[in-house]
């Protein structure tokens, strides 16, 4: 079935390509040319909103916490599929509870035949985890297919968590240094504030949705970091260029011009990334579901907003472009608007 659909879509693309190459397609403009939105004025609303949301996210983090997956918490995770076609969760729960392994969670996963079993970390070190998984295998026997078994000992989970956190910090610092090197320090700082804001909000999202927080979440966070910055850098590049060109334009106007002139690009790029992520979210299977969901939230929802409403306007407060007139006496007169 899927193959016929794919072939059909391939043919559609071929036809579209020929039509497009011949110049017969109408032009699709998502964003009209020459927009003049006053984005920087919106900072009086966006900054308090972001501050409030960040506080909510941090509060959530401390009250609800994150749902640590076994990477960071240790313990055992089994994904099993009933050979009969439907898993009898109640019966499985009874037989697993009888093993005396402490907290055992069972959860339907995907179809009715799939069950995710989580066994809390056993006291007694690494060997005890191995015994636990042996017991579970013994109790469920051959009635199920073991699709995935993961056992993470107490020491490894601690290390993975430490590694993940160190990695996150390392990435932030490395990017900060790079930006400092490429731009002025105000830009680096502005990008960093925007970034931490993104990560805080995404962590708030993970806390509220209680998706598993594991190594792939760290991967998602780092990707969000990268792409959100990607966007910010595009706008900053433009701001820098405008600063060089229009020496006397007031900062808020200059920022608005920069954001507006890159707006079309920002929206189109986010649209294509959203399309790619949507495909992963809908068809990529549950193994990467939380991974893509987190990225969707971070890259698409937060990232775009941040670069336009936080990263750029914050430069006003960081004093970018304040001393331009002093530095260049023979500045070319600023044009009112870009033609």
């Amino acid at each position, binding site marked *: 079935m899927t193959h016929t659909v794919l072939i059909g879509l391939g043919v559609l693309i071929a036809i*579209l390509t020929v039509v497009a190459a011949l110049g017969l397609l109408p032009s699709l403009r998502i964003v009209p040319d020459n927009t003049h939105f006053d984005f920087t004025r919106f900072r009086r609303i966006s900054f308090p909103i972001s501050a409030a949301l960040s506080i909510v996210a941090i509060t959530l983090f401390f009250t609800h916490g994150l749902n640590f997956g076994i990477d960071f918490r240790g313990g055992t995770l089994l994904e099993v599929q009933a050979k009969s076609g439907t898993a009898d969760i109640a019966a499985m729960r009874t037989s697993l509870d009888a093993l005396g392994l402490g907290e055992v969670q069972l959860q339907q996963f995907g179809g009715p035949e799939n069950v995710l079993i989580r066994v809390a970390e056993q006291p007694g070190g690494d060997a005890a985890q*191995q015994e636990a998984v042996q017991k579970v295998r013994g109790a469920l026997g051959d009635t199920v297919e073991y699709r995935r078994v993961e056992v993470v000992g107490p020491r490894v989970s601690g290390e993975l968590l430490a590694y993940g956190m160190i990695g996150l910090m390392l990435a932030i610092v490395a990017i900060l240094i790079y930006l400092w090197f490429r731009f002025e320090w105000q830009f680096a700082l502005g990008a960093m504030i925007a970034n931490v804001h993104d990560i805080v909000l995404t962590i708030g999202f993970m806390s509220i949705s209680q998706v598993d927080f594991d190594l792939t979440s760290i991967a998602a966070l*780092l990707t969000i970091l990268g792409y959100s*910055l990607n966007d910010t850098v595009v706008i900053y590049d433009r701001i820098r260029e405008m600063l060089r060109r229009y020496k006397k334009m007031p900062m808020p106007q200059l920022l608005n011009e920069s954001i507006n002139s890159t707006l079309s690009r920002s929206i189109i790029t986010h649209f294509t990334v959203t*399309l790619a992520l949507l495909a992963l979210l809908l*068809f*990529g299977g549950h193994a990467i579901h939380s991974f893509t969901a987190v990225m969707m939230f971070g890259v698409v929802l937060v990232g775009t907003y941040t670069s336009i409403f936080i990263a750029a306007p914050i430069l006003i407060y960081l004093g970018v472009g304040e001393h331009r007139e002093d530095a260049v006496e023979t500045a070319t007169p600023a044009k009112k608007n870009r*033609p």
Partner: protein
Amino acid sequence: MLYFTRWRALGIILTALIVCLCAVPNFFPEAQVKTWPAWAQRRLVLGLDLQGGSYLLLEVDSNYVKKEKLDQIRDDVRRVLREAKIGYTGLSSKGDAVEVRVKDTDLQNALAKLRDLSQPLGGLLGSNGQRSLEVSDAGGGLIRLTVPQAAITERVRQTIEQSIQIVERRVNQLGTVEPVIQRQGTDRILVQVPGLQDPTRLKELLGKTAKMEFRMVDASVPPDQAQKGSLPPESELLMSASSPKVPYVVKKQVLVSGGDLTDAQPGFDQRTGEPIVSFKFNTSGARKFAQATQENVGLPFAIVLDNEVISAPVIREPITGGQGQISGSFTVQSANDLAILLRAGALPAPLTVIEERTVGPGLGQDSIEKGELAAYVGSIMVIVFMLLTYRLFGVFANIAVAINVAMIFGLLSLLNATLTLPGIAGIVLTVGIAVDSNVLIYERIREELRGGRNAISAIDAGFKRALATILDSNITTFIAAAVLFYIGTGPVRGFAVTLGIGIITTVFTAFTLTRLIVAWWVRWKRPQSVPI
């Protein structure tokens, strides 16, 4: 920006073509690729989450290594002092050190003799002044021998080196395809076995040190009496391997050890039909075994494996051929496993499984199918969107993205990289991101056109200004990918690899191919307006 010399254009196309061609071996069956020349054999490796298999992380017990080291030092001290005929008291190991007390008159002599035990670390070459043992005078005739941390670390490192070889031999006995065994950090071994569904047997094989010893049974004390405490100093109490556990009193002295075995094979006893393990000694083992059996005809000896008695047969006649067999309530499987362990040799220290991840083949296949579907759907949506938005230039962008993806696969194959499910997600994401470079260029061209430039000058300026931005913005993501590669393992690392390579190919195509395509179009069409 739009002018390419003929050689430059050729160079760009050749580079892209060669990198794309590196992906070709992936489309042929593995058996066929094996017959190709070695340089053409590089291909993508599917991660364990896609092809199914087991991942085990083993850790050597460094406390055990330390204790062994201290025990050995204690034995050395005893031997040295006896040879030097120095009287001593209170020889014991305490914490990180071995302590012994000698008379004041013997102190200097004893210190000098014991200092000979200490050696520079790392052999004569590469020695950094660290020594394997520090001998100090603790006052009052007390000598303290401490093992510096560096010496213990060195010892753990050696233990891991030896263990890896033995682990390798044991894993290879499972008959699986291309297992990966690597050292990880200072005290860990990573074992990856593709296709292995149930690692229980693997863990059993790796969980035993398999230290095999032939010793005499001490018949002077009945076991039940020994259990109450009257154990001769030269003997110890060991339990049988089979259940119910039966105690044996066994002499500490080892007649022959497993290190002297040259071969071990599973088989069946010709009379009883029971599973057995037959073994062969090397020359020195055969000589020692012959001598011991000659001296002890009619007495029982014990075959001890990891401090458990497998069997304790009575020596009926001297065994001089250097061959023998072990029988002791084996199943076919356990006889087979024991033979494997004996052939592979004993581990110098026990290994513990500290992390295990196993994916069944069903889930792996599902993941491949879902990843492929998501990749197709994502690409198609992006391609159609680009066509609708940029029309002819959308065609250019799509050509660049298609070459980009082919180059990602080419580079991944060239690096023999591992493709994981998050890795596939990374490629899909790259498709979404790769068009960004085109979007940046095209939007800039539009802007320059609005600014009143003519077609060719607008295209030229669009490329010039956008490329700097493309480089800046991609480097940030590349830094994130590099960090992720460094901290991540398994599937996450796969994501970092595809993301990082995707960025490299994206920047390459933006700077060269997209530009080249547009340059050709400009030269061919001499456009007055840009249909963008």
